[in-house]
């Protein structure tokens, strides 16, 4: 009696597996689909090839003046010659180590706080919120033996980052307070918060910036000497904290009423209820919204160009007006776009990662 020898399974048809199968399934599954694929591929080809050629293949990378741009492609020399100005503005050159050090420390703290495996998170957070701001202020502005560098010499990417960071750190707590106020049971407080939020959300940021930068001293007798940068920052923070408040409110509303009632039943005080029960749960829901607000805050810092502060966009625009370098707007704007994109994109990626991580077991 011969033993039963099963025939080995035949391989799937070549049209169903591997690259071909994948392509058939994803690119050519039907006639309209095929048409779309071919059309998109053509458009992509006709846009991407000239662009890559211009930006990389035919580009000039090294040199020191306009004369070095000869190959007809992008002239990245324009960027590299003024790179320091784009990064630091008119910050004195021999003090570049100060913003550099502040930035490295910042990266250090970010790594400490954002990578789960590193311990002592609480300590890190406390240091980052108490010691670091003072340190960064002294490094950037001066004092304690360091030469004072007034804010009107700050500029470039450094200014963008300073504005964005302070804005982010300040806008979140204000937003939370506003959102809680909007859900308060005291009608006056609720009213005040609603008016505040709706006002800032209803007007364009540039009118706010205009007010903050040139009209504010009218509101005080004898004027005020508050720094221009400071005032612009207050404008941006007010504007974004109103948006933040709405995000937080959304998170609070999404929470089931039972949680509030449970906390009340346990006899927790208002702040205990909020900080121990409500906010930790709401936080999960709010993270995408919060990060989106932070991203738009980051992007909105570019508007300070309109009131004459020179962030990275402002520096590039000033460079574009240099008679020796006329005619390279594409390079300049692409460079700025790339810088903004890196920061905003990484923020949005981190938010997705965080969302997945915090999404504990509620997924069906």
């Amino acid at each position, binding site marked *: 009696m011969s033993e039963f020898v099963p025939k080995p399974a035949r391989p799937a048809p070549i049209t169903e597996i591997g690259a071909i199968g994948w392509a058939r399934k994803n690119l050519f599954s039907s006639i309209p689909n095929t048409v779309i694929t071919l059309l998109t591929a053509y458009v992509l080809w006709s846009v991407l090839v000239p662009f890559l050629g211009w930006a990389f293949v035919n580009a000039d990378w090294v040199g020191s003046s306009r004369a070095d741009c000869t190959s007809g492609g992008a002239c990245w020399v324009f960027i590299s010659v003024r790179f320091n100005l784009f990064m630091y503005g008119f910050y004195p050159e021999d003090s570049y180590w100060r913003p550099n050090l502040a930035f490295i420390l910042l990266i250090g703290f970010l790594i400490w706080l954002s990578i789960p495996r590193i311990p002592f998170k609480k300590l890190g957070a406390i240091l980052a919120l108490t010691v670091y701001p003072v340190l960064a202020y002294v490094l950037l502005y001066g004092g304690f033996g360091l030469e004072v560098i007034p804010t009107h010499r700050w500029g470039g990417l450094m200014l963008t980052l300073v504005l964005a960071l302070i804005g982010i750190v300040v806008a979140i707590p204000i937003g939370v307070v506003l959102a809680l106020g909007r859900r308060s049971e005291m009608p006056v407080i609720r009213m005040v918060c609603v008016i505040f939020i709706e006002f800032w959300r209803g007007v364009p940021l540039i009118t706010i910036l205009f007010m903050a930068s*040139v009209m504010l001293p009218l509101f005080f007798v004898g*004027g005020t000497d508050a720094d221009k940068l400071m005032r612009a920052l207050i404008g941006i923070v007010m504007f974004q904290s109103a948006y933040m408040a709405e995000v937080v409110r959304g998170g609070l509303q999404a929470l089931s009423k039972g949680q509030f009632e449970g906390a009340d039943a346990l006899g927790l005080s208002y702040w205990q209820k909020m900080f121990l029960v409500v906010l930790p749960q709401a936080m999960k829901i709010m993270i995408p919204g919060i990060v989106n607000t932070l991203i738009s805050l980051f992007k909105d810092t570019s508007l300070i160009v309109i009131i004459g502060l020179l962030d990275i966009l402002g520096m590039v*625009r000033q460079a574009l007006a240099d*008679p020796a370098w*006329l005619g390279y707007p594409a390079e300049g704007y692409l460079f700025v776009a790339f810088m903004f994109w890196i920061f905003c994109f990484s923020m949005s990626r981190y938010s997705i990662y965080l969302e997945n991580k915090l999404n504990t077991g509620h997924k069906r």
Partner: protein
Amino acid sequence: MKKIATLVGATVAIMATAGAHANTLETVKNRGAVQCGVSDGLPGFSATDSSGRWQGIDADVCRAVAAAVFGDAEKVNFVSLTATERFTALQSGEIDILSRNTTWTLTRDASLGLNFTGVNYYDGQGFLVSKDLGVDTAKELDGASVCIQSGTTTELNLADYFRVNGMSYEPVLYDTSDQTVGGFEAGRCDVLTSDQSQLYALRIQLSDPDSAVVLPEVISKEPLGPVVRQGDDAWFNVVKWSLYAMINAEEMGITTANAEEMKSSNDPGIQRFLGVSGNMGELLGVSNDWAFNISKQVGNYGEVFERTVGTGSPLNISRGLNALWSDGGLQYAPPVR
């Protein structure tokens, strides 16, 4: 709870102290620097050089004021302003002086709450056109697109000029002079209109300056000068006389180089001026060697003019109306006596 109460109390207290009042000269002295509003980059008038230092005839007016008040011409905080922001910034107290090629007009004097302290440059509005347009006079500009900087008297003069001559035009507005030149160069407009001095300044910013010409017509009077807020006569006097000191210094032949030795001059007028005798500075509320500091650190009007917009600069503008009255120009300063 206690914290909140303290916070509230502190806020109230801070707001109460904001009620303190001070005059500009005192505020400036306490601050230790003059807040000076300048342009966002107009070569010859106020523009930063490659090291970030503000240069130009308007910037030097501010330096002269700082020299008079502090004895140190470098105690100036320059605030770069667009044309649209400038008056609001001055009105609100954001800046102490506006020295930003600003035209002296009745409305600005009477309704904006401002005072013009004098004229540091006599100008007039003109047109810059590209050569290949083949236009010789502004009368041929019917239907043209015109690049203008927004928020200037230029905008109004232009409208008047085209209406009087029965011509139409399309205004193309830009916020800064850089953008205006950019628009002109790209062909967004046929004509760029501005004060004549600026036209020369802007022309050298073109990639090919010879491709454009300034038309002969001058369609308006544009006396440019430093501006201060109304209702503060002490400060008004300091700024006014700082400018006059520069003009007087040129008249007396005092320059940066010879200011020190002029101190030993036996001309009583020069002695009074340089603070060797008399108390001219005290009367203004500054130190007696104020005019010496201006001449020594900033220079006289003629020096500043030649260095910033005149033959010593790329602009190469001749003195013309801005020569001293004794040379047939309009610059005339009341005597220091």
